[in-house]
């Protein structure tokens, strides 16, 4: 009896120990962002200080610097504009495409859908050379509008695939009833299918937005003017002056840019997973 209790206690301890390990592994870099961004420089750059907590009172100096002395607000605004435009382009193209592939094109639709989805796997590092030429031809080099043009190349395939799943899950009888009642095919799509798949559309909006925030390679390749950079690129590359890293400011910027994406992901994670696994798991 005594022995069994010890075994159970040991098992519980190792279980929670393992959970704690994962917890620290995942969260520590973010804790590090937070603590760095609120620390005085003299506290940061002192190897004798315990780095895990404040040795001097916390400060908002880095945030103030970020908003007043750098282009941080411009980058935020750029990212917002890019995200909104890409979301609009994605919805306008992917919604009808997904509906068509789910409902109107029969068996070919499935194959075509897989074909479109596979283009999501074509990496930016293979396409950036020719695309930079395309962008130069269009006169968009060094402008954030180049990203508005290029980002739909991965958001359209992804969102078409995601929305296809949504439309397939919708019972076709509803649209059929609308058509019997005198609605055109187009009208059935606008008045029936779209309102009924609003949760799917919301998911797509959130994911398009976060995908544009996460993108780095195209932004790095096409945009080098500081005032045209999206936030991820600006924070990662533009807060370094000369060879000196301003860690307080960099971490503060990274923190602000990370928070919305982290929240969005946690809310819509399950939809994302069933999207990329193609509904292999229901």
């Amino acid at each position, binding site marked *: 009896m005594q022995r069994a209790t010890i075994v159970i206690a040991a098992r519980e301890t190792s279980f929670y120990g393992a959970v704690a390990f994962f917890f620290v592994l995942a969260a520590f870099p973010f804790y590090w962002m937070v603590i760095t961004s609120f620390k005085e420089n003299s506290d940061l750059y002192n190897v004798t200080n315990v780095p895990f907590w404040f040795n001097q009172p916390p400060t908002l100096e880095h945030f103030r610097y970020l908003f007043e002395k750098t282009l941080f607000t411009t980058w935020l605004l750029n990212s917002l504009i890019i995200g909104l435009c890409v979301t609009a382009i994605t919805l306008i193209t992917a919604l009808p495409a997904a509906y068509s592939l789910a409902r109107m094109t029969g068996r070919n639709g499935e194959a075509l859908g897989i074909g479109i989805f596979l*283009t999501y796997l074509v990496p930016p590092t293979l396409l950036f050379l020719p695309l930079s030429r395309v962008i130069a031809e269009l006169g968009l080099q060094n402008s954030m509008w180049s990203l508005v043009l290029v980002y739909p190349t991965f958001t359209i395939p992804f969102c078409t695939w995601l929305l296809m799943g949504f439309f397939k899950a919708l019972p076709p009888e509803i649209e059929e009833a609308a058509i019997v009642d005198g609605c055109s095919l187009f009208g059935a799509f606008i008045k029936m299918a779209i309102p009924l798949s609003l949760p799917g559309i919301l998911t797509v909006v959130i994911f398009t937005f976060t995908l544009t925030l996460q993108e780095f390679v195209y932004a790095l390749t096409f945009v080098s003017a500081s005032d045209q950079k999206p936030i991820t690129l600006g924070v990662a590359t533009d807060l370094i002056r000369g060879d000196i890293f301003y860690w307080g400011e960099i971490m503060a910027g990274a923190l602000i840019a990370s928070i919305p994406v982290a929240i969005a992901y946690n809310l819509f994670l399950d939809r994302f997973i069933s999207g990329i696994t193609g509904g292999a798991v229901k």
Partner: protein
Amino acid sequence: MAVIAEPIAKPVSRFRFILDRRDVLGAVFVAPAILYVLLLVGLPLLMAVYYSLSAYTIYNPTWQFVGLSNFQDIIENSVFRETLYNTFIFTFGSQILGLVLGKFGALLLLRRFPGRKFVRALVILPWAVPIALATVAWQWMFDSLYSVINWTMIALGIITREQAPNWLGNPDLAMLSVIVVNAWRFFPFAIVIFLAGITAVPQDVLDAATVDGAGFWRRNYQIIMPMILPIVAIGLIFGIVFTFTDLSIVFLMTMGGPVGATSVLGFAGFQTGIVSGDVSHGAAISLFMLPVLLIVVVAMLRFIRRREI
């Protein structure tokens, strides 16, 4: 067959009539998406192939065809061979580490315990947060002087300050660092994939196996693993594609250094093609990703087909 009644022709415009045909409207609906993807993915892909066979640089933008000589140049270059080797080490190292962490994490999160939802939400973070920003945080953690990792090891008495490693300055440690960061980025994805797979295994199958005398490990490796293999394979395919072609982690943490020790295909293509402007050689370097991508795509199609049967 006798016609009972003539269908009454409705007075509608021809335009509407065309749009009411299922196949026509279907094609109209799908056309913008296909065009977008063809013009900005398909066409550039062909251009990349042609660049790699031409003598194109930004200083001399000719389309002169030079055959396979660009490929010959880069294969004969020992720096490139190292890059290719690094890419494989980087990809497989981080995927294996990520999968192991993912499997363990998923097993832990399967059990109900207080605070499970909170832990799950936090564990997703490395994958959710833009990788460029998380990489910068890691770069700061690997700092040559103020590294928190070194500080902890010194404080625990494992090493002295003189022995403190320069994570990003030593070739082997730099490779280890970028692998760790990439595995760290992917393990939440692996956890989620494993969780989705395991929870989809029907409970009665597991119960039947338990009744038949299968223990924990046997259930795990002879029942659950084969059943979740397709979904894990799809997750792995994503991981491999995005790691094999990655640029951001290496670019931000090590710039391919020290002396090319962490240079990977995406980074080398960027340096040669964009920074140095030698577009044709850059394209040839990038195209070395294509065989791996093709294998992956074929594997993906096989899994999707299997799912349909």
